């Protein structure tokens, strides 16, 4: 089975679990966790019951990730041992790291790719086998206000303490990050943020100075760049500086990337791209996240020719653009 087919399979699994839960609720019969605020002790209990039952399903999928210079966390998302974590936990592709299961079992894993833009990273357990895993949420399946819970190993693995749970709500969702008020600490990095349905919606990334305002990589980043993360080097900010340059700033939307501004004298301006245009594809690959555009452009050397499809008003237009060099301070 190919990797994209496997990803598709996880999504199907996720859908099978989620859809019945939604369909039971009529328009006027929301579950307690779908309301703006819980109104009673009964509703708090309902949220608690949902989270606790889901917690039992997913707790064995969360691992500690250990290297000589520190520890992070991660979550298994496939039976053959793929682990989502943070880019800053793996650092680079091809690194051997030790993972520790909640019961203390230790295994070796190898880092694959990821991206420093969103802080997404992937590991794979080296030894063949079958492991319990958690489903990834579908893209755009979480929103501001949703209840969620964070799992991880703050300050590293502790056999007596076990996994540490934190509950909160999504307080902001931007292109490459999700913010919640789940309290996090060093060692949590790379650990999973779960929806109340037990799907991975984010990966713990940066820990904010304010305890109730922490950052997570979005699951959308993994979905959008899946093949690239699995097969290519970890995409770094250094790569962004050295790589090809287009010269647009965009806002991510469901129908593509809306151009907000075009840099004067950039390849984008020379190709007549304009604010308001909606970027659809680069070299035939659909643009579902802003990060994907950044990676597709900056992973090519300056001077490369790319095919860009965009929408202006009703018309789809295709252009060939020669990428420039990102200008650096002299």
């Amino acid at each position, binding site marked *: 089975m190919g990797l994209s087919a496997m990803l598709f399979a996880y999504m199907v699994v996720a859908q099978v679990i989620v859809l019945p839960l939604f369909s039971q609720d009529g328009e006027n019969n929301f579950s307690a966790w779908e309301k*703006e*605020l*819980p*109104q*009673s*002790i009964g*509703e*708090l*209990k309902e949220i*608690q019951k949902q*989270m*606790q039952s889901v*917690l039992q399903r997913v707790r064995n999928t969360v691992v500690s990730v250990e290297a000589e210079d520190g520890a992070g966390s991660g979550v298994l998302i496939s039976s053959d041992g793929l682990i989502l974590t943070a880019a800053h936990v793996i650092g680079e592709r091809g690194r051997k790291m030790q993972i520790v299961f909640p019961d203390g079992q230790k295994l070796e894993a190898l880092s694959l790719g990821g991206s420093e833009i969103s802080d997404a990273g992937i590991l794979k357990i080296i030894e063949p086998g079958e492991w319990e895993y958690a489903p990834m949420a579908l893209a755009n399946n979480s929103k*501001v*206000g949703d209840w969620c*819970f964070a799992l991880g190993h*703050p*300050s590293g693995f502790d056999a*007596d*303490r*076990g*996994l*540490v*749970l*934190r*509950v*909160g*709500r*999504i*307080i*902001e969702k*931007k*292109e490459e990050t999700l*913010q919640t*008020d789940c*309290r*996090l*600490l*060093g*060692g*949590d990095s790379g650990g999973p943020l779960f929806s109340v349905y037990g799907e991975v919606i984010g990966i713990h990334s940066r*820990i904010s*100075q304010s*305890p*109730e305002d922490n950052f997570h990589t979005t699951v959308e980043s993994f979905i959008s760049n899946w093949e690239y993360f699995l097969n290519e080097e970890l995409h770094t900010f250094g790569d962004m500086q050295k790589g090809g340059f287009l010269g647009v*700033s*965009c*806002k991510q939307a469901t129908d593509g990337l809306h151009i*907000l*501004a075009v*840099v*004067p004298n*950039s390849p984008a301006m020379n190709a007549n791209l304009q604010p308001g245009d909606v970027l659809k594809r680069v070299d035939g690959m659909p643009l579902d996240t*802003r990060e994907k555009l*950044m990676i597709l452009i900056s992973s090519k050397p300056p001077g490369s020719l790319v095919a860009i499809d965009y929408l202006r008003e009703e018309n789809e237009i295709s252009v060939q653009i020669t990428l420039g060099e*990102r*200008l*650096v*301070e*002299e």
Partner: protein
Amino acid sequence: MKSRLVILWNFLSLSFLFGEPLSLPVALAPEYRLNGSSIGNALGQTKDDILRSIVGLYRNERLIAHGVIVDPRGFLLTKASSSVGARIIKSCQNESFPIRIRKRDEVTDLALWEIVSSSASSWNSATWEEESNVTDLGSWAFSASASLEGIGLGVISATSRPIGREGGVMGVLLKETNSSSHGIEVLEVLPQAAGDRAGLKISDRIIRVDGRPVKNTGQINRVLQNKDPGDLLTVVVNRKDNEVVLRITLGHQAVAFDLFNRNLIMSGPVSKRKDNFSLILQHDLPVTKEMMGGGLFNLQGHCLGINIARVDRVTNYTLPSNVVLPVLNKWLDLLP
């Protein structure tokens, strides 16, 4: 001129790529957040009952601990080491009363105080949840806010377990030595920590600890692990070929070394004593070290135990009712 434009546009394009200059995303309004002003309203009357059973303990007008009313005659339970020197309590109605200490237990770090009041008022004591150590992971838990005006919300966040001894510390860095016949060298002395106060100096060579000759760092560590903060350690050092005897009152890990731990720098002040408890519940509530001694409550408004240590910003310990009640009941039986 050209280079100035280049810099400007490079800055703009980077900020457009990484920031959100033109579209303001909608953030969840503060009152809807986990510890926003509105969530606690779901508790209704239970919230007021919880708040009426909690008091703030003050020393020199400063909040130093919370306490739980445990008897209608006006007895309260708190964290012993946090409540040292308390003079008055303030209730959630902002009434002040003098207090006096009645009992103190080193093992659990609990203390019983009596509220001194001329009026024969009956105090609203907390209702206990028995055997609270079996509370499930993910159960909601509540504590009073610092000012006793609202409540903090969180969950039981990890396995209930005993917490071992951290041991006392000298607050020095020693040269890692396997076998030395002329003492173990002191590489660093942390200012104001136990060793510094006792006069230990950089380059001193430790040759005897509590009368026993030491040849490696492991031997020193084993002695320290069996001592608590506050215990005395007699150290003989070789200083420029003279033997000097030093008597060190050992300090807390939290005071000496946690200053160098990034996680704890981000966590803010933590409890001095956060070790050596026979059993704890762990939770993730937003509490400060000045709120230790207060109660942790469940959805029924029953007290699960006494908040006993703020460990870091995601970790707090609560002594469960099955540890607290035997101590408390013995004390209450002994009172007239």
